[in-house]
């Protein structure tokens, strides 16, 4: 089909109708989730299988085009996911061998394949995903299209009203009106800082120096977070549209999306989306027939957490080492190539079209007074229902972990939830009723961050978690300033000392003192927030630290130096599985007899623990 450029809002309306008609042709649609989680679990194989089955079986009234590869549907824990719309029939953990049944039974005979439906821990089975608690408690704005449209097809996006907000901005609003609308919405930066987006845009727009740049931060360096990845891969056009609206508001004609290299699909889909949008005249020169032009380029990051920091990111876009620079020069004034620059993250931009479309007031009503709208989280860890979620600001941690997340796996007690990535902190059970918004989390010693939410149970050791994050930050420190480079490293060494049972209580004091200096003296946000993993855990879990120090014991059974693996003679049936698994040859015993572990040989790798089906290996 030859593509004619969309040259006016009318053209866009016409195109939208046309796209909707194309969609309506299919009475039913089959959505295969190709989000990061599902792909890791073999979704690509399932897509291929569907294609070949559909070709072979020729279902009446269902063509191959009615099958869509979508972005992340959210419920990653249950992936790969297949949804049949409009009924919302929701199949989980689909294997290649299940595909034929879905085709035959659901697509041909309109029947549900019961054993592929989701069964909640309370044994209740759901047919329609919208009824599942995991989805029911969510409100999706940034993730609105994820799992519902083909990620690689601009026509799908246009069919659901895509680029209408851009058309509205360009034709009915002045740049200052756009900024006003974003200010009214109360949208705050979703990358973690929480700076009001409208104010950022306004200060850039005011600067007379040209050119202005618009950058989208898709670096998402926080381990345990994948919201931005999901949006870039699942709904790339919403990001492009948001950026274009921003560019119009701040008078920019050049934008960059900084995507980390570890996300090759995001790079590919964004590139594809940019190409498509340019073909349709929705990006590039003379957008929608106006004299507004905006070009977006993709800049692949080289893998450095510090590049999430705005000045480091801009250096990286310019092809240099990502070292942050002093804060007193604001990047809005002197950003990329020392020009005025607006930098927001993926999720922030994805919210923008909705704000323009439905109005800032509408958006501001959602969430709390100081934190408007919704926030996407990757809810992961020891939670039953892990995945990608979006909730209104102000939802409590309890609602997220227990109502949406379904509580802790294996019914173990909740211990903590970690938010804000490496710079955030761990919140214990008595903070579960805190409202999730920028200010409350910061006050409690954690932070919103970009939206990783990692749930921990009693099998998680806070000393180990602090050690883990400190190690991460040490590895990711750019090494420019002393407190971050040397201070975090020494803090890490002290945490190691605790985990090995070699520390004294003096060391804790030393760590707290050092943390204070690192916060005051570091150059950039990475250093300034570096001690948080330690500070938030010592604040809420001092006893656990003291148990490591005084009793030389790790209550969670994680710190290698402080634990031993032992065979529970009562439970052991002498199956020899552990003996075969033990690389250190530390376990002995005959078949059918109770095995024993030679502690002098044991290197505590945990292999025996993992293979024992009878739970006869105990950690002490």
């Amino acid at each position, binding site marked *: 089909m030859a593509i004619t450029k969309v040259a006016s809002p009318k053209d866009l309306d016409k195109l939208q109708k046309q796209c909707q008609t194309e969609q309506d042709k299919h009475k039913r649609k089959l959505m295969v989730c190709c989000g990061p989680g599902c792909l890791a679990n073999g979704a690509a194989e399932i897509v291929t299988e569907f294609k070949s089955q559909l070709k072979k079986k020729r279902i009446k009234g269902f063509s191959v085009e009615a099958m869509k590869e979508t972005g992340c549907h959210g419920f990653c824990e249950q*992936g790969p996911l297949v949804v049949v719309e409009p009924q919302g029939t929701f199949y989980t953990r689909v294997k290649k061998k299940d595909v034929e049944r879905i085709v035959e039974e659901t697509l041909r005979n309109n029947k549900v394949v019961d054993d592929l439906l989701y069964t909640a821990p309370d044994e209740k089975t759901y047919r329609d995903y919208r009824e599942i608690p995991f989805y029911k408690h969510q409100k999706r704005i940034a993730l609105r299209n994820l799992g519902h449209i083909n990620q690689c097809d601009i026509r799908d996006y246009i069919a659901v009203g895509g680029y209408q907000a851009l058309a509205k901005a360009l034709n009915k609003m002045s740049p200052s009106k756009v900024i006003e609308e974003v200010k009214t919405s109360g949208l705050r930066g979703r990358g973690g800082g929480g700076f009001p987006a409208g104010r950022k845009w306004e200060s850039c727009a005011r600067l007379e120096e040209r050119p202005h740049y618009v950058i989208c931060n898709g670096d998402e*360096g926080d381990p345990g977070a994948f919201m931005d990845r999901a949006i870039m891969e699942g709904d790339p056009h919403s990001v492009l549209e948001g950026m274009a609206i921003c560019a119009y508001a701040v008078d920019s004609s050049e934008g960059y999306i900084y995507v980390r290299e570890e996300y090759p699909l995001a790079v590919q889909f964004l590139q594809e989306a940019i190409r498509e949008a340019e073909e349709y005249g929705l990006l590039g020169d003379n957008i929608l027939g106006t004299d507004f032009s905006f070009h977006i380029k993709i800049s692949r990051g*080289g893998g450095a957490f510090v590049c999430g920091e705005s000045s480091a990111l801009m250096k990286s876009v310019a092809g240099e*080492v990502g070292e942050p620079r002093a804060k007193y020069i604001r990047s809005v004034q002197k950003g990329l190539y020392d020009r005025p620059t607006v930098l927001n993250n993926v999720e922030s931009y994805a919210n923008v079209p909705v704000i323009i479309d439905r109005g800032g007031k509408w958006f501001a009503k959602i969430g709390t007074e100081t934190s408007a709208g919704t926030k996407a989280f990757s809810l992961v860890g*020891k939670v039953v229902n892990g995945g990608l979620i979006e909730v209104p600001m102000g939802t409590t941690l309890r609602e997220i972990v227990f109502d949406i997340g379904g509580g802790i796996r294996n019914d173990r007690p909740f211990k903590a939830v970690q938010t804000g990535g490496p710079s955030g902190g761990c919140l214990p059970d008595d903070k579960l009723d805190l409202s999730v918004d920028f200010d409350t989390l910061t006050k409690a010693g954690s932070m919103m961050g970009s939206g990783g939410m990692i749930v921990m149970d009693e099998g998680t050791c806070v000393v180990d978690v602090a050690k883990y994050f400190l190690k*991460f930050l040490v590895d990711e420190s750019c090494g420019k300033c002393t407190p971050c480079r040397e201070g975090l490293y020494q803090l890490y060494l002290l945490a190691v000392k605790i985990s090995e049972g070699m520390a004294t209580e003096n060391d804790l004091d030393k760590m707290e003192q050092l943390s204070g200096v690192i916060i005051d003296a570091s150059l950039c946000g990475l250093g300034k927030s570096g001690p948080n993993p330690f500070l938030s855990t010592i604040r809420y879990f001092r006893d656990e630290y003291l148990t490591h120090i005084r009793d030389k014991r790790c209550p969670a059974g994680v710190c290698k130096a402080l634990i031993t693996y032992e065979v529970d003679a009562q439970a052991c049936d002498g199956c020899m599985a552990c003996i075969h*698994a033990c690389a250190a040859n530390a376990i002995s015993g005959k078949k059918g007899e109770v095995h024993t572990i030679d502690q002098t040989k044991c290197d505590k790798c945990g292999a025996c623990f*993992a293979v024992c089906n009878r739970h006869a290996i105990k950690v002490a």
Partner: protein
Amino acid sequence: MNHDMSKLPDIFARYPQKPQSLIAVLQDIQKEFNFLPCEALKETAKHLDVPLSKVFSVSTFYNAFSLNPKGEKVIRICMGTTCHIRGAGLIQDQLESKLGIKAGQTTSDMKFTIEVVNCVGACSMAPVVIVNDKYYADVKVNQTKKILKGG
């Protein structure tokens, strides 16, 4: 070791001949050779008119780059938070002791390289191990043999 530098002009042609293209060019070289050969760095410096010291600096700063050749199979162990608390460290220990190398190293027969990566965004499937492009989700300590065999 000699490497075929005739591929460089193709890579150079993909990006504007400006210092800004440095990271992109290095990424493509890394992809082509699986590491950054010295000669390629020197050619890049010349082509983009960037001091060689800067090229060296950038190529050692970012995780994506390696100055040492990698093995046939690159085993990437995700060390995202979720993977960590679900036991990725134990899996790393197993893989390291099985291959007799540490993370970041390559076996002397150039068959395996172990790398630790900072979260691949598949946290719901933790712990995750990726061998070249194949994902292993929810890996157990006793599955490392299988992973090495490629099963």
